[in-house]
């Protein structure tokens, strides 16, 4: 677990759009690892190129830490949002989990 360089509170890891970031529980400051700013910039330019017809509402940083680690390339929903997986567990349980 990382300590915030500014206020020394604990930092939690979140995954925003596939990029792993640390956010301080105290001052809410954000820390990016090496290469993560570039990843975010790249994602932003892809986002702009794709020009989706109806971009989803921006997600707020979760108030409570979701705690679980995820890879930097993990699905965006790994940012937390309790309850999101209620239906997902059923939905994801399919043929793919039973085959090579």
């Amino acid at each position, binding site marked *: 677990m*990382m300590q915030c360089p500014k206020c020394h509170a604990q930092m939690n*890891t979140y995954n925003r759009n*596939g*990029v*792993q970031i*640390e956010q301080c529980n105290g001052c809410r400051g954000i820390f990016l*690892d*090496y*290469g*993560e700013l*570039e*990843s975010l910039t*790249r*994602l932003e330019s*892809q986002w702009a190129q794709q020009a989706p017809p109806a971009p989803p509402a921006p997600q707020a940083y979760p108030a409570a830490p*979701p705690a*679980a*680690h*995820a*890879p*930097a*390339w*993990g*699905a965006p*929903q*790994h940012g937390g949002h309790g309850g999101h*997986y209620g239906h*997902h*567990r*059923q*939905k*994801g*349980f*399919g*043929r*793919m*989990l*039973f*085959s*090579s």
Partner: protein
Amino acid sequence: MCEPPQVLADRPDGTVVRSGTIVAKAHAADTDREALAARIALAAAPQLAGILLPPLPAPAPAAPTARPVTLWPLGAPVDPTDPGAAPWAEAADLLARLHRTKPPFPLPPMRGPAKAARAVARMRAALRAGTTALPGVPAALSDDVTAPPRVPAVEPRDPAALSVLAGWRALPPWARGEVPVPAQRGGFLCHGDLHLGQLVRHPAPDGPWLLIDMDDAGVGDPAWDLGRPAAWYAAGLLAPEDWSVFLDAYRSAGGPAVPADGDPWPALDVPARALTVQTAAVALAKCAAEQRDPDEHEQLMIESCARIATLPPELATGPAS
């Protein structure tokens, strides 16, 4: 018991038939027989009792050229209709115990990376089959305006296929099966093809869970066996609570693939990427062959590939979080 025999699976890599309480598997014709014999001996080894389903004595081959056949006791599989009953903790515990067992005799390499390579080759072949304009004309030349219409499902410049190939190229050579696994990652007993179809209760229906299907087992990186659940979790297919149960059980049982605590992803990253690429490649090959669009689950794995392609391993496994 006089029920007629029942075909449980019939794929190029193996045909599985059940008769009463015995299951017979005819392995692929091109199976490396010596390697298969070592893998079957592993399932029979006393060190693996309670981890691997032991085989029944097999009949002598009908002919030297016949497909090799192995016999197994019938077990009760995971119920595909009941997500809540999926044995994530038991699967992880079995893997941890397998990985902790010293190889009792020399074994071939675990075939995970080779299977990933085969999946990508299969996708490439399926795309070529779907896009080559004329027999003998390379796909690269078939942009000719006189070319007949292409199969709509997957095109050569299909972004999904390009993501799969980009994710594949970014993997280290060992994860593509091109060179042996690095010494610091390898040397552990591995299953090589873990998914929920690889667990049965024996004796059925209430016996303990055991791992089945030794065709890809061998020595290698134990993180590969965690790679498929990790890939499902990363794609949003496996719920975080199920992933936590799986990972916690693996760590509780002293599994060597990930550190005992802290971030497991530096160890899981490459195998999870490889299995994401493999799964997406198989999905795209099937879509091309069946001339259909990816289903919802396939789409999640393809999207995961796209993210992998934008974030090479050297960025993802930088300083620990």
